[in-house]
């Protein structure tokens, strides 16, 4: 198993003191689903937003440590963040479609990356919609405003939008928190397909989802990584008392 992402001693504190990470060490294998779970405020989203440097938009008081993706430190000031974000796609909790057509949402990133050829763009639209299990529903209405899609479809469009850039890693921050069970099932099924090609890092919206989807699981509590291991063993036989208490619903 090759480690795609290696996090070394990562610490971070926001300027407003809200959430923080303390001394995180974590190796995330490629082509698998790794879930980061735990109660709110544990630092899961913060960690995700470090991986594509989206935290650059937030005021961070202090940070230390390294995040190696394919051996290169992402936090290095020399890192080309634009290239990084194309390589590390992200899906947010609330489906945010850009105020463009369905096609426009999908080609947005590619056009910014300088792709002008219509054939390449069309190819990317079809490929990414198929991967996100939205092609059948959307193929006849690609030029409709994306907002006309249902909530579940919008979230799959957001997934497709990050796939269109052919990233290596996909970050998903509670992608199904606003979705009904059927839509949630579709997204989860898509993830199981996608993990054959992509490294997936998921913050699930429930322990159950963590259990269902994970190959590997990391339990976060108040900015610390409590336990990390294969999903099967972590959810059936957790080593840490706090992990067990959380999984069994004693707190959180």
């Amino acid at each position, binding site marked *: 198993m090759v480690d795609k992402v290696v996090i070394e001693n990562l610490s971070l504190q926001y300027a407003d003191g809200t959430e923080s990470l303390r001394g995180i060490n974590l190796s995330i294998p490629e082509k698998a689903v790794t879930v980061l779970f735990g109660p709110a405020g544990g630092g899961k989203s913060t960690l995700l937003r470090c991986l594509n440097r989206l935290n650059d938009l937030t005021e961070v008081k202090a940070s230390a440590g390294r995040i190696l993706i394919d051996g290169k430190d992402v936090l290095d000031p020399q890192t080309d963040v634009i290239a990084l974000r194309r390589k590390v796609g992200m899906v947010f909790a*609330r489906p945010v479609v850009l*105020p463009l057509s369905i096609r426009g949402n999908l080609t947005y990133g590619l056009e910014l990356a300088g792709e002008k050829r219509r054939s390449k763009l069309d190819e990317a639209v079809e490929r990414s919609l198929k991967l996100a299990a939205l092609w059948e529903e959307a193929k006849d209405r690609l030029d409709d405003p994306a907002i006309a899609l249902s909530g579940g479809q919008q979230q799959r469009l957001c997934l497709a939008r990050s796939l269109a*850039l052919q990233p290596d890693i996909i970050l998903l921050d509670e992608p199904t928190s606003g979705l009904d069970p059927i839509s949630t099932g579709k997204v989860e099924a898509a993830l199981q397909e996608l993990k054959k090609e992509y490294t997936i890092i998921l913050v699930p919206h429930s322990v159950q989802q963590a259990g269902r989807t994970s190959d590997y699981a990391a339990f976060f509590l108040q900015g610390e990584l409590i336990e990390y291991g294969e999903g099967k063993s972590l959810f059936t036989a957790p080593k840490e008392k706090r992990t067990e208490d959380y999984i069994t619903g004693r707190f959180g």
Partner: protein
Amino acid sequence: MKGALPINRHVAQRVGFTAITLMAFATVLPIVAVVIYILIQGLPAISLEFLTGFPHDGMRAGGILPAIIGTIYLTVGTAIFSVPLGIAAAIYLSEYASDTPLTRTIRIAIINLAGIPSVVYGLFGLGLFVLFLNFGTSILAASLTLSIMTLPVIISTAEESLRSVPQAFRTVSISLGATRWQTIRRIVLKEALPGILTGVILGLERAAGETAPILFTGAAFFLPRLPHTPFDATMALPYHLFVISTQVPEMPIQIQYGTALVLLVFVLTMNLIATVIRSRARAKRQW
């Protein structure tokens, strides 16, 4: 006595509502009255010659073409300076500036700029543009003066409409590998454009109707020909109206009201365009 109280309350409520409703309608009355009055008084003066001819007989006869053209020149001139500057400032304040003492000072300055009486702008324009920069009494100096007066309106409405674009659009765009500027240009500006345009038109509309700022900086009492360059002075509708209403004895009253009508139509048309843009954008908005 106890039993009568609820009825009294009910009556009081109705009276109150009626009073408030009447007051709401009363606010519409002045604008309707002004428009109707000016229409009745001014319409007889309107003719092709009035709109396309030069004034003659000491402005007591003829048309007001140079004033119409002059007002168009001044409005366009004002737009040339104030629109790019105002939008750029709004983008800076909304998208780039963080909350520092400097940006707070800029904001306070803009708010205060909006409160300065227009005649003070006129005097300032005379000092800076006409005399110090030696532009003379000219379209250029008047446009620059009007621009300064218009800027606060444009900046504050543009900033407000930029801020109303959901933050999530920016985050998503950045996460897809866009730079800040690409995000602003492709998503934020596009969404904020109707609001910005509305502010621009409202600002320019104010500029078109003002007399005081152009009084010392660019307005001419009477010109026998149209201005040729930005360094020429020009006639303008509001100033012309002031002149023929106060400075010319034995002035036929229809010409005054005719001029007022043309100015009113000019300004209200701009207002109408702004309203149409705004309501169409609202209907189309996707968030």
